[in-house]
């Protein structure tokens, strides 16, 4: 009390390592991390069409890589990443949409998420069926 002069000295805490401090943030970082999987797959596709553009020999070489068990394993990992991305994307979705009123009541978050996941499932089935029919 005695000394004059300003006594306030607000302390600013560092944000260093914030994402490690709370399970919620760890999960956030993990789902943000799925971007690496998406990027990887986009690159694989990019390489694929580049090889395709370079002709049959280049394509067959690339096909050998694709059919290599190791590469298939990598795709399994990618698949897990994509599935996680799908899951989290639709989990966040209710937070991003304006309220949807149906039959006088607000559609719940769980319903929105479930609808999103169902849409993903249906879209996937359609794509798979198209792929299968193209293949035959």
């Amino acid at each position, binding site marked *: 009390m005695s000394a004059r002069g300003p*006594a306030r000295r607000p*302390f*600013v805490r560092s*944000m260093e390592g914030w994402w490690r*401090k709370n399970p919620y*943030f760890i999960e956030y970082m993990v789902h943000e991390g799925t971007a690496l999987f998406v990027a990887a797959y986009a690159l694989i596709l990019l390489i694929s069409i580049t090889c395709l553009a370079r002709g049959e020999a280049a394509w067959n070489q690339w096909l050998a890589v694709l059919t290599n068990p190791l590469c298939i394993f990598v795709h399994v990992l990618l698949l897990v990443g994509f599935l996680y991305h799908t899951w989290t994307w639709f989990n966040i979705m209710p*937070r991003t949409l304006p309220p949807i009123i149906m039959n006088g009541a607000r559609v719940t978050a769980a319903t929105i998420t479930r609808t999103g996941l169902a849409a993903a499932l249906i879209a996937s089935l359609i794509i798979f069926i198209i792929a299968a029919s193209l293949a035959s």
Partner: protein
Amino acid sequence: MNTGNKVITIEVLRYRPEQDTAPVAQEYIVPFTDDMSVLQGLQYIKDELDGTLSFRWSCRMAICGSCGMMIDSVPKLACQTFLRDFYPNTVRVEALAHFPIERDLVIVMDDFMEKLDSIKPYIIPEKPRALSEGEYLQTPAERDLYEQFSSCINCLLCYAACPQYGLNSNFIGPGAMALLHRYNLDNRDSGKEQRMPLVHAEEGVFNCTAVGYCSEVCPKKVDPANAVNINKTESASDYFLRFVTPKGACK
């Protein structure tokens, strides 16, 4: 005070700017009963153990918004968090994250007050309405549209939850956006056009990466993440459509 025979350790992150260079943890042993809140634990410390501990509180019933703090690293209202849920472990309390610590559990909240001011949180009527004209008509459905966003008690838990605000305090942030949205949605208001530039701005909604934790911790179910993200969509469509839609078409 009704002291049971159980005791619990409360660890408080203390900071006294006139003597500490950085915050330090201090432990207190507090007798407690099952109905005691963390706030009551702190009051016990203040009354019986250490009169120099500073924290904000008033209503004790989760409505004044004063007592937000990090409790075991989660932003919570101390009056609405119970010691029984931590016993027999130590409870760690710290000032709300992402704000400068004024002292002990007290944060500097000037930044939020400025933000609140900047969103024009009041009805901007299309034309002035005389009292003799009576109330505006507003159906329960029209009221429901914004009611949730009007429940914000300015407790700032959402700011302490939002890493994007922590990383960049220019971000308008979840709580203020919820209130901005509340006024935009009110059928008595015509001020949306005046508020949207802030939404569109570099300080605006695009700082949000949809972490969503703000809504998770909000004690009043305001869902500020929703307000922020709805406005992202709105802002983006305005960004692309502003040249095609005639001015003023947004309301």
